[in-house]
């Protein structure tokens, strides 16, 4: 959060603080929809992925997608939630064209997960937000308004896809905390493989509940809800604007104007706006979904799912620092993306130099991924082969600079590093007796610069190294060349 350059920034207020709770909606990655067997995916012709169930046709009935339930339980286990042995679904009623049944199947009193806590980092310091619950529901379709046409259209491809809602306690205090909390949620979802968390496609959406109060107070003031934020940046910006708005009202004695309402964030104008008028007082008339029997879990089934949990980001972060000796920065960078971290670990398995492997993964490899625009699984370089390249660099068999060319060639051809290094003629010459001969030749050929070096003109040594490189077509190990020049100039020539 940047401090405003001039004037008082309400966000810097020492008198007031914000209280923030998030409701994060996560699109689950399942093959089929929540209550029918239609494919759950994006980017198809409108209404192509529908059936009587997700169209809400007369007589159709829902059937629970076990996979979605499992995913939700796994997320709950990852956050230490209680998993009650009985869970049930409820109907939430409201009329809207994108909701074909006139109700959404959701969960009210008996969510799949109760409680739990999310640990996350803000500026290197650990924070905790408690969870209220995690429940499962079905997504709605999409209303489509075509510019200049009087009628609207509805696409129900998304209708009935599984949506998990993670509800936090109002434990967050700053927009930055809210953003970092959400980043951690995303990281964990990716680690569990339950969602692609693709924010452009709306796989991760957030409603923010925010109120403000005198700093240190323990009661909760009237809150507003900012709906449907779909990027970390928008979450942070929207909260900044809303908190500033509320504090400004408090500072000027107009706190009565803070009312419980739903607000929308307008990123272009940088403000939140009341949806007043649109938002009527909803009575959702929840009642137990009679078409679905309650689900009863066995403790063994839950334990079975617990066994499928991968090592979670924070645990891995600690291990990378303690067991592999990585810096906090490098460990954090590696852990952020599960695929990168997995790749890194497989590299380290075959070449146990975590620091140099980590460096190469985070720099050369990531750069290569970026320039190719592919994920790590598509780069075509097996971790064992990548480790060989790092080892070759560490052994002086190839220069750092040339190693990047070799990596590119590896990705292009899928061939091993050693082969390509030889073939591309980029083997670094680190053979002492050979280099010693070349250095002796260079010294003999350039008495002037040699004299300069003897008199302490260090610049001239670079010239001599350059000559060595020229005579070896750039393959000499430059560090070795330099130390040999020092050695040979400093001592009387052998004769």
């Amino acid at each position, binding site marked *: 959060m940047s401090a405003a350059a001039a004037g008082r920034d309400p966000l810097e207020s020492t008198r007031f603080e914000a209280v923030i709770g998030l409701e994060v909606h996560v699109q689950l990655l399942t093959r089929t929809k929540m209550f029918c067997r239609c494919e759950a995916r994006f980017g198809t012709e409108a209404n192509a992925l529908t059936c*009587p169930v997700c*169209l*809400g*046709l*007369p*007589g*159709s*009935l*829902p*059937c*629970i997608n076990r996979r979605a339930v499992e995913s939700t339980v796994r997320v709950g286990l990852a956050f230490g939630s209680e998993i009650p042995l009985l869970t049930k679904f409820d*109907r939430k*009623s409201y*009329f809207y*064209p994108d909701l*074909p*049944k*006139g*109700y959404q199947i959701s969960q009210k009193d008996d969510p799949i997960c109760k409680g739990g806590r999310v640990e996350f980092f803000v500026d290197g310091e650990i924070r905790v937000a408690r969870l209220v619950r995690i429940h499962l529901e079905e997504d709605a379709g999409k209303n489509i308004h075509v510019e200049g046409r009087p009628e609207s259209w*509805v696409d129900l491809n998304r209708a009935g896809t599984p949506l998990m809602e993670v509800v936090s306690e109002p434990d967050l205090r700053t927009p930055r905390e809210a953003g970092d909390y959400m980043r951690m949620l995303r990281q964990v979802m990716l680690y569990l493989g339950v969602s692609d968390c693709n924010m452009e496609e709306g796989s991760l959406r957030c409603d923010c509940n925010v109120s403000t109060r005198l700093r240190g107070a323990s009661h909760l003031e009237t809150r507003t809800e900012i709906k449907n934020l779909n990027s970390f940046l928008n979450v942070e910006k929207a909260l900044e604007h809303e908190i500033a708005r509320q504090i400004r009202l408090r500072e000027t004695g107009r706190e009565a104007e803070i009312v419980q309402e739903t607000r929308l964030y307008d990123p272009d104008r940088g403000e939140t706006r009341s949806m007043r008028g649109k938002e009527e007082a909803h*009575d959702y*008339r*929840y*009642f137990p979904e*009679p*078409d*679905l*029997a309650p689900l009863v879990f066995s403790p063994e089934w839950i334990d079975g799912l617990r066994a499928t949990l991968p090592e979670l980001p924070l645990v891995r972060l600690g291990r990378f620092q303690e067991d592999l000796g990585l810096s906090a920065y490098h460990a954090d960078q590696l852990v952020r993306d599960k695929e990168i971290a997995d790749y890194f670990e497989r590299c380290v398995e075959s070449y146990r130099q975590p620091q140099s492997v980590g460096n190469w993964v985070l720099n050369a490899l990531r750069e290569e991924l970026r320039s190719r625009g592919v994920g790590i699984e598509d780069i075509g370089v097996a971790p064992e082969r990548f480790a060989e390249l790092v080892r070759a660099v560490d052994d002086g068999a190839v220069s750092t600079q040339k190693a990047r060319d070799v990596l590119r060639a590896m990705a292009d051809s899928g061939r091993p590093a050693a082969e390509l290094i030889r073939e591309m003629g980029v083997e670094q010459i680190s053979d002492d007796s050979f280099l010693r001969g070349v250095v002796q030749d260079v010294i003999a050929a350039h008495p002037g610069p040699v004299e300069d070096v003897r008199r302490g003109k260090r610049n001239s040594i670079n010239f001599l190294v350059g000559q060595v490189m020229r005579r070896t077509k750039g393959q000499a190990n430059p560090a070795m060349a330099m130390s040999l020049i020092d050695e040979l100039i400093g001592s009387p020539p052998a004769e």
Partner: protein
Amino acid sequence: MEIRDRIRRGEMSALEAVDEALRQLDVVNPRLQAALQIFPDGARTAAAAIDRRLAAGEDAGPLAGVPFTVKDNFCTLEGHTTAGSRILESFASPYDATAVRKLKEAGAVCVAKTNLDEFGMGSSTENSAFHVTRNPWKTTHVPGGSSGGAAALAVSTGGMIHLGSDTGGSIRQPSACCGASGLKPTYGRVSRYGLVAFASSLDQIGPIQSSALDCALVLETIAGADPMDSTSRDLPVPRYADEAQQDIRGLRLGVPAEYFPEGIEAEVEEKVRAAIEVFREMGAEVRDVSLPHTRYANPAYVLVSAAEASSNLARYDGVHYGRRSVSASGLVDMYCRSRGEGFGAEVKRRILIGTFVLSSGYYDAYYLTALRVRNLIRQDFEKVYREVDAVVCPTSPVPAFPLGDRIDDPLKLYAVDVLTVPANLASLPGMSIPCGFTSEALPVGLQIYGRPMQDEIVLRLACAYQARTDHHLRAPPVCGWRGGEEGG
């Protein structure tokens, strides 16, 4: 089922069976208006296909060539699926209900869809948006409801299968009014997939025939688990027709005092008590039992069914299918007008009641209380079923009543269901069979309740009774089959 056996023996082709069914419909329907849609062309084409398979020596299914009708709240690929409502008047389902699919897979042929109270809400079939149906015994009287069309056809025609649905008595009460044999199976015994929902936790599909044995045969075909209905039960399906013909000696029958309430017509009580004597003579043990919460069943039923209906009927909003008002401007206006024009008065009344009882502030007092009563009713039966195998009682406190007699007084109409709703609240199997006629020549229904998932005991008692009596064989004045050979 005689028609099935005759086709099987080659004495009759499937096409002849269907033509005979269509002929009977031609005779009775103008007078009874029991069918909403008849499919002569589709049925004859399907029958001809069955005949070709039979001619080729193929197994065309256990019900090959048998014509069937379904209540018009079953989704069918044939015709429209209206649920008796204007709002679905032109709705064509892209799929068959599971029960319909199973009948077709068994070789049966869909010939017609029968009239009903709109969305199954009513006990007289007078709430159909299209027309009333008349009682074949006395055409000035109602056939009962909501499966009135099916019950009227079950006694006035022969050689067909009829499926109805029962949410609070909608199979049993019209069966009683028409002298038919109608079974509401245990909840979960038959898949509800493709049945236009009224109240999901109460709805169940079942047969209405002229004999209990035929009901057993139909149940055998349509029962069983369905992956499309997670409330269907994954339990083995007995050979109901065989089970139904077993001896009833030693079965213990309970007669609940609460089921002969004040206001029951004397002739109804008399015929039912006489029927219970027949069971005693056949070797059943009869004893008095008590179901003390019976008088709370009807109010609980009204609240639970209305609550679920208000939600189930929310989808008829004019947006995706069904009726959309042409005069609407804007979204909310479209909702209001489409639903306002599309639903009848009784449906609106139940939606209002249901919406009210689910509203915050009233939910606990009404909906939750109703659920608690439902539980007490369940417990009443659990207790009684520790000492008896089945409960026998009247189906309805009154026989068929004149058209228009009760339609303007919802409470008087709801009172007709008082003896049938407990089966739905407690998820029990229940059946109505004719046990005599009043002095006005109107049938009286005997009701048999069984334990959950013991539908075969109910059928066994009904079959045993029908082996000793001939009420179910009598033909009504409006009749398409009298003089013909079918009747079984």
